[in-house]
């Protein structure tokens, strides 16, 4: 209650004051979704239910009884969260047509606060991938591909009116959610983060991507990939919004016993002016092979920014960083092998017509339902879990995991408050270039900077920093101590204010412009 009163928000205030109604807002977002359909950010658009929710929200505002700061705010949810009565596919043939019988806890919490669910966003199949290119509904296009900023930097081609050739990827696996937020079709979106799946697309799409501490937000209803590393991720246009979303989602859930039982108090972010008491760590191993010189320069500048503002900036070492991706590869495939075993066609999802025997039906169902990436990970995982390999690979990876986690522990105990690293190795690649390497190779390359935070369960956030020479967003990552999201977000907010990341200039959005949208573009709902 205190949070709602204290925060001033452009759209939230506008809703409260009646300058715009939830239905108007919802309709504008739905119209924008239609005109940005070529981005392929949404798998399912729940037009009817969204309008109904908007109407109910409008009633509440009329009575002067909004449920909270999120009442009437349009949001989108990644399609690996269960949403009651709405198709949940995980971008896979295995779950095409599957209508969830229940809401994931995080979805329920958002709905309970009056948020308006616009639809389910596109992703890599079963959240496996780093480009949002491997789902059955096709790849997600980065909205920045169509921005004035990118087009200005592109070499004009002979057939320059052609929208097709050089659009860039949105990153993954929560690419749809990131694209949806980036293109103004919603104010916030849920993603999931197992190896960087929220922060990677956030960096490529120029939005804020928050990975909370493992155990803070409930995973009940999130179709699992790696149970010991998955977290729901939050994508918004500014850090304050991320804090608001976090406040409504965090907390113990009896339905997810891996959520911690400590009391969680939603917080407001202070406007930090004095960073002199802060100690920022720069892990040298994050200067990974392949890091573009551009991003290196931005990283450097950011470190200087903190130093010049009086913070203590020190080089630190996380010696096992280079093994993090290998470790992840083994643990992820092993847990995937286990988690994907539930898809057999018997109780839900796709079912093959083969009737000879249970096993042959299962095998055929899985052959028909999963794509190469998923099948590949299942088989690798099973290999690492074979009796003769269990110690050598799985247990070994678990030991290396402990080493990685304790690397972070040592650094934080030595007085460093926050780590500053790049989020991705370069800006978004053109789709045609990206698909030349297979999914596993790409994931191994692209997850390298984000993955370790999942290993150690630490909170991490991508803050859009600047535009690259090609006119595409580049983000930097802050990693904090476990359960210290307030400190992490406070620093991120300070940084965001310093860098003043430009607003995307999209034709489609301009066309839908009105007084309300003008306000929205530069701010957010909080």
């Amino acid at each position, binding site marked *: 209650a205190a949070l709602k009163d204290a925060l001033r928000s452009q759209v939230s205030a506008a809703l409260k004051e009646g300058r715009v109604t939830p239905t108007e807002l919802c309709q504008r977002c739905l119209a924008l979704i239609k005109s940005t359909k070529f981005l392929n950010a949404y798998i399912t658009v729940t037009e009817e239910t969204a309008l109904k929710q908007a109407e109910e929200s409008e009633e509440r505002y009329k009575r002067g009884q909004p449920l909270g700061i999120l009442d009437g705010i349009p949001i989108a949810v990644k399609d690996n969260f269960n949403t009651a009565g709405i198709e949940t596919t995980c971008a896979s043939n295995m779950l095409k047509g599957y209508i969830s019988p229940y809401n994931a806890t995080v979805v329920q919490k958002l709905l309970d606060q009056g948020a308006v669910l616009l639809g389910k966003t596109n992703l890599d199949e079963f959240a496996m991938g780093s480009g949002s290119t491997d789902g059955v509904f096709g790849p997600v296009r980065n909205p920045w591909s169509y921005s004035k900023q990118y087009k200005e930097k592109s070499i004009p081609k002979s057939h320059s009116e052609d929208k097709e050739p050089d659009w860039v990827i949105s990153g993954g696996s929560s690419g749809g959610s990131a694209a949806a937020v980036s293109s103004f079709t919603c104010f916030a979106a849920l993603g999931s983060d197992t190896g960087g799946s929220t922060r990677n697309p956030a960096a490529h799409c120029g939005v804020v991507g928050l990975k909370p501490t493992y155990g803070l937000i409930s995973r009940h209803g999130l179709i699992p990939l790696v149970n010991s590393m998955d977290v729901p991720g939050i994508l918004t246009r500014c850090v304050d919004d991320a804090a608001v979303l976090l406040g409504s989602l965090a907390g113990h859930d009896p339905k997810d016993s891996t959520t911690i039982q400590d009391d969680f108090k939603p917080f407001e972010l202070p406007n930090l002016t004095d960073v002199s008491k802060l100690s920022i760590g720069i892990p040298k191993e994050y200067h990974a092979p392949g890091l573009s010189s551009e991003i290196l320069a931005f990283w*450097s500048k950011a470190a200087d920014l903190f130093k010049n503002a009086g913070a203590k900036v020190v080089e630190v070492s996380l010696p096992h960083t280079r093994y993090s991706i290998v470790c992840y590869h083994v643990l992820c495939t092993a847990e995937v092998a286990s988690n994907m075993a539930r898809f057999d066609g018997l109780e839900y999802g796709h079912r093959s017509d083969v009737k000879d025997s249970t096993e042959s039906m299962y095998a055929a169902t899985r052959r028909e339902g999963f794509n190469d990436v998923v099948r590949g990970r299942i088989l690798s995982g099973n290999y690492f879990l074979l009796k003769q390999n269990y110690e050598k690979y799985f247990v070994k990876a678990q030991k290396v995991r402990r080493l990685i986690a304790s690397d972070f522990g040592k650094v934080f105990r030595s007085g460093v408050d926050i780590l500053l690293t790049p989020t991705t190795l370069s800006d978004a690649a053109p789709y045609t270039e990206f698909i030349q390497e297979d999914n596993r190779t790409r994931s191994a390359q692209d997850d390298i900077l984000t993955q370790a935070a999942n290993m150690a369960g630490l909170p991490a956030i991508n803050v859009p920093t600047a535009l690259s020479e090609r006119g595409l967003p580049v983000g930097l990552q802050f990693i904090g101590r476990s359960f210290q999201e307030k400190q992490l977000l406070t620093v991120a907010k300070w940084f965001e204010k310093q860098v003043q990341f430009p607003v995307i200039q999209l034709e489609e959005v301009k066309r839908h412009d009105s007084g309300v949208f003008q306000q929205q573009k530069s701010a957010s709902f909080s």
Partner: protein
Amino acid sequence: MRVLSLGRWLRAGRVPPRGRVRLNSGHRHSGHRPQAPPQGPAQVPPRKVSVEVLDHLEHLALVDFRDSEGVERLQKAIQFADQLHEVNTDGVEPMDSVLEDRCLYLREDDVTEGNCTKELLENARETVEEYFVAPPGNIPLLKLEEQNTYLQGSK
């Protein structure tokens, strides 16, 4: 802890990206695509996995390799994972979960929800009354010799 001098650090001999680093000459596909991460000190050739093991994996996972690409993918995955053996983990305990220092929440053993048979059955393709219908059970998958799959062809 010494204060970071990024200038010094940037000039120091960090391994430069291998291979193609084209300067940004204005071409759209400019040269900052990341290289493949280091494969390990020596380029060990991918370990060949025996057909028996591959067959065993297909039976365990109930998922097929489908073609030579699938098998190659596995071999590359194993080669990648072999890098783990460079790390010295003597005396290190395996870590199951980052929350290992806490107790999982256990609730009281009381029935709090249920009675959702109808909803659950709606998602299944083949049901009879309140049952899920499965094809006959204890018939094992065809042995390798009897199959008409990629692996059989490659033996």
